[in-house]
Each structure stands twice: as C-alpha cells, then as structure tokens.
C-alpha cells in the first residue's frame, strides 16, 4: 500500500481537482503510476513518436552501418571522385550526396559517423546520470556537513566552463578515442544532474510518505532506493535527456575544433570542419553532415521536451 500512495502523491501535487479524485476512495483496478500515465500520453503524440522513430533509426545506423551503405567510408578514389557533385536522384547509393576532397563518399561517411555521436551522447549521459544522481541524492538527503562539502564540490565544477574545460583535458592526449571524449565530458558535466537531484530530494524528504516510511522503521538505503529515488527520478531523467543532445553537440564542436576524436575515427564534427574550407566551391560537403547532425540533436531535444511535458503534473 505505501507504494500506491507514494506514486499517487506526485500527480496530485498539481491541483486541487486531482486531489479530490484520489481522496474519494480507492480507484477501481490498479492505480496508474506517473510513468504509465506518461506513457499513455506519449504514445499518441507525434512530437514523441516521430523523434523516437528517428532515434531508433539512428541507433540502428550506429550499430549496423553496413546495412545502409555498401562502400567503406575510408575508400578514397581521387581520380574519379574528387569533389564530385551529389546525384540527388540516386537514393542511398555512394554517390547520392557527393564525394569529399579525398574522393570519399559523403553518404557513407555520414552513416559511419553516426556511431561516434550516438555512443558518446548516450555514454556521457549514462555516466553523468549515475554519478550526478548519487552525489545529489547524498547531498540532499543527509544535509549538514555532507551537503556543505558536496555542494562546494559541485560549485567548483560548475565554475569551470564546460567546453573550455573539456578542451583543456582533451588537448593533452595525442590520440583521442571515444572513451577519452566520454570521460572528459562526463568529468565536467555531472554537476547539472547533481544539482537537480539535490533539489528534488530536499523537497521529497520532508513529504509524508518518507516520514511514514521512516517511522515504520525503514532503513536509510531502503528509503533512498524505494521511496526517494523513484519520486525524484522524473525531473532528473528529463534534464538528462535534454542534456544528451547537448553532449552530442559538444562532441561535434570539439571534433570541429580538432580537439575531439582523432583520425582514423569518423565524426560529423570533423567532417564539417574539413568542409569549412571548401564552403564557396562545394557547399554540399558542409550541408548534408550538418543536416544529419541537426536532425539528431533535434530528435533528442524533442524527445526530452515531450517526456517533460508528459511527466509534469502541473500541465495535467
């Protein structure tokens, strides 16, 4: 029963109308949780379904790039393909989006570049989510000197400009793989999540169901994992989903500046950087990778927005 109570507590925070419904007595059937409510909402919304579909496609592209193109992204034929114009009617063929200044198929490079962006975006988000939530939860729940200490640490890391800090870390390495970039971004990026988590844990720990659980004799970890975490998760996950798009941007900007992934890694940012010099003569070099990068970031942002709207009890 405490479970059903606590899950109801979040949606009712919104307005007096829903409180009345809940107080009227046990609803028939199983009580719907915040998450299942959100899911019912989301699956009918095009602003969720379309980005979700695009992201699924990008995931498949990242996992199995060979399914989408037959040529290797590193295969270069300078004699025949130097800066060859796109053949826009030859869908999904290597010459579809043209060739770059090394005679490599731009389409193939775009497909193979997906993996770097997706892997980096998702891994950084996962690391940041785990570490940031842990720090935020400990700071918010225990308060006192633990909070004081952890909050100062958060302040210190927040004081460091995100991209500039990442550049300082990354420039020290001569070869930079996906993992170097992931760790550098996660090292500097966890504070946002920690702050949001801390804030929502502080407001949750005073709520009736936590007090009730404690007075029933539940241990600290049980309270944290069973009661606090599930209720504090919603805002944190929304922030993380929106941040994911930001991490993909960060990777692209770093690779663009030549401080991200190093050769032979294929990355949209790096390709866009090399395209910049040809902007007057061959703007297609720049256009298509930028377009795909934009679509990717847009999809993650829209997904985050849609999930936020669905989880926000104030909007019901």
């Amino acid at each position, binding site marked *: 029963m405490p479970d059903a109570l606590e899950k109801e507590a979040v949606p009712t925070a919104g307005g007096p109308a829903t409180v009345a419904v809940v107080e009227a007595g046990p609803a028939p059937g199983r009580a719907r949780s915040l998450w299942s409510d959100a899911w019912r909402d989301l699956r009918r919304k095009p602003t969720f379904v379309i980005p979700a579909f695009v992201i699924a496609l990008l995931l498949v592209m990242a996992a199995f790039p060979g399914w989408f193109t037959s040529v290797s992204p590193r295969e270069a034929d300078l004699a025949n393909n130097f800066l060859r114009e796109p053949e826009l009617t030859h869908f999904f063929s290597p010459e579809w989006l043209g060739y770059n200044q090394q005679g490599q198929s731009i389409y193939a490079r775009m497909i193979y570049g997906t993996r770097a962006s997706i892997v980096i975006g998702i891994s950084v988000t996962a690391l940041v989510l785990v570490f940031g939530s842990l720090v935020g939860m400990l700071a918010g729940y225990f308060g006192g000197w633990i909070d004081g200490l952890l909050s100062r640490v958060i302040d210190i890391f927040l*004081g460091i400009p995100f991209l*500039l800090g990442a550049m*300082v*870390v990354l420039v*020290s390495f001569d070869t930079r793989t996906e993992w170097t970039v992931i760790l550098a971004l996660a090292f500097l990026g966890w504070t946002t999540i920690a702050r949001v988590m801390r804030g929502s844990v502080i407001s949750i720990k005073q709520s009736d169901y936590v007090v009730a659980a404690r007075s029933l004799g539940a241990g600290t970890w049980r309270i944290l994992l069973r009661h606090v975490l599930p209720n504090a998760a919603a805002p944190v996950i929304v922030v993380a989903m929106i941040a994911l798009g930001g991490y993909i941007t960060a990777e692209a900007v770093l690779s663009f500046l030549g401080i991200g992934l190093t050769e032979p890694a294929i990355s949209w940012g790096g390709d866009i950087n090399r395209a*910049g010099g040809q902007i007057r003569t061959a*703007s297609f070099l720049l256009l298509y990778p930028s377009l795909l990068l*934009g679509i990717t*970031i847009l999809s993650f942002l829209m997904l985050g927005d849609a999930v936020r709207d669905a989880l926000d009890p104030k909007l019901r």
Partner: protein
Amino acid sequence: MGRYVARRLLQMIPVFIGSTFIIFMMMYALPGDPIRALWGERAPDHAQMAAMREELGLNDHILKQYWDYLLGLLQGDFGTQIRSRREVTEVIGDALPATLRLTVMAFSIIVVVGIGLGLVAGLRAGRKTDTAILFVTLLLISLPVFVIGYLYQTYPGQQWGWITPVVQDSENWGDLLLPALALASLSLAYVARLTRSSIVENRRADYMRTAKAKGLTRTRAVRVHLLRNSLIPVVTFLGVNLGELMTGAIVTEGIFNIHGIGRLVYSALNEREGATVVGVVSFVIVVYLVVALIVDLLYAVLDPRIRYA
C-alpha cells in the same frame, strides 16, 4: 545587503581556488610539453630547454607551482606567456576588447530578441505565432554554433552580400553583427523558450487576476506584473550563460577571423601554452562568479519578497 555581498565574496574564494586548481592540474599534470613545443619539428637544444624550465619554475613540484601561481594571482600576476615572454595579463588585455565587444553585442541580442520572442509566444500560447516561434527556436537549438556560423557566413554574407562575411575591423560594430548573431543564436533560443514557459505558467496566476480585477490595463499588467515575475528563471539562465558565451566565442572567432580571447585560448591550447590557458580560464571563472553574484542580487530587484540581510 552589504553583509550578504561580503559573505558571498568570501564564499567565492574556495570555489575560485578549487576551479583554478582543477584547471591547473589538468593543464600541467597531463602529458604535453610547452617547452618542447617551442621547437616544433626541429631538434631541440637540450641545454636551452633545461634553462628555460628552470627559469619558468617548471622543475618545481606541481603543488609548489600552483601555490606560486596562486600567490601571483593575488597580486594580479597571471604568469608569463612562454613563447613571447609577455605578461599573460597583457596578452589577455590585447585580446579582450574584441571579445568583449562581440560578447556584449551577442548578449544584447539575446536579451532583447530572446525575451521579446518569448513574451510574444507566451502571450499567444497555442496559436500560430507561438508554434512558429517554438519551431524556429528549436531549429536554432539543434544546430551547433559552427553550422550556424557557416550558414550566416555563406548566405547573408557571401551569396546575398548583405553584410561582410569576415570581420576585418573588430572595432566596427557592423562587421561584428554576423558573428554576434551566430554566437547569440543558441542562447537566444533558450531564453525565448524559457521566457515563454515562464509566461505561460504565470499568466493564470492569482496576482494576474488581481491586477486585472483592480482595473489595470493589459499592457501594464503584463509589463509590471507578469514579465517581472516571469524573468527570474531567465535571469538565472542569462547569468550562467555569460561564461558559456565566452567559450562559444572560440568557435565564432575562429570562423569569422576575430582576434580575441577565443583565438588566443585556442592557439594556446594547441601549443600547450599552460600559463595562457590557465590565465584565460581563471579570468573566465572570475567573470562567471561575479555574474552569479550579480544575478543573485537581481533576484531581490525582481522579487521584492527576497531580502538579503
């Protein structure tokens, strides 16, 4: 008020020490040798290298180096640039005006256009204008700053010839318009969306009904009551954003050929020029902390319920 500011300034000290410490460690403890980099591809002169190391104190323990650096900072000494042997403060001073002009211009665009668009969208929430503004801002958010920079440079700059595509004179505000727009785009979109959602949330607040009930005109109710209350989260964002703008300047200054802080830190990074990088980052951190304090003081102006004792 005075006591609050004093306390906040005191709290800044550990944060400043911590942030610069992390940057300093990252710059010096990780691989990469600025002295060796001076010779580039050529064979270095080892005796000269050793002498330079000794002179710059690079042989000391890393913590000792940091301590010396911190003592220097307290006296306004940001260190010496290895390549040119100039004071880092002087190097920053040369580069700062261009970046400052760029940032001020971008910031004004963000504030005026961002809040303006957000207000219009928020007041017409759910209608066509709102959808259009949401769509455009989403587009701006999803394009990284370098793509936007190239787009602006190509279309209004080169193809249509409206504005000069490359900055030739960083003291000319007209030249700076395109880079400032590119730099502003992302934050402008965030500010517009933030203002919009804040307005939508507060539009039906009790105080708005009261304002209407006591006979205020719509303009006055919106301007004095709604906007002022809705701006609190926007001001927070703007404060955090100023530091990020200086980072974004690295890309923008590169694309548009502006010799400012961004170019400086970028070339310093590539040459492993620790003193310059740490100096610039320390400077950005100071800006960031001071802006955070100003933002907190602005809260009291926007929301009279907040009082700082």
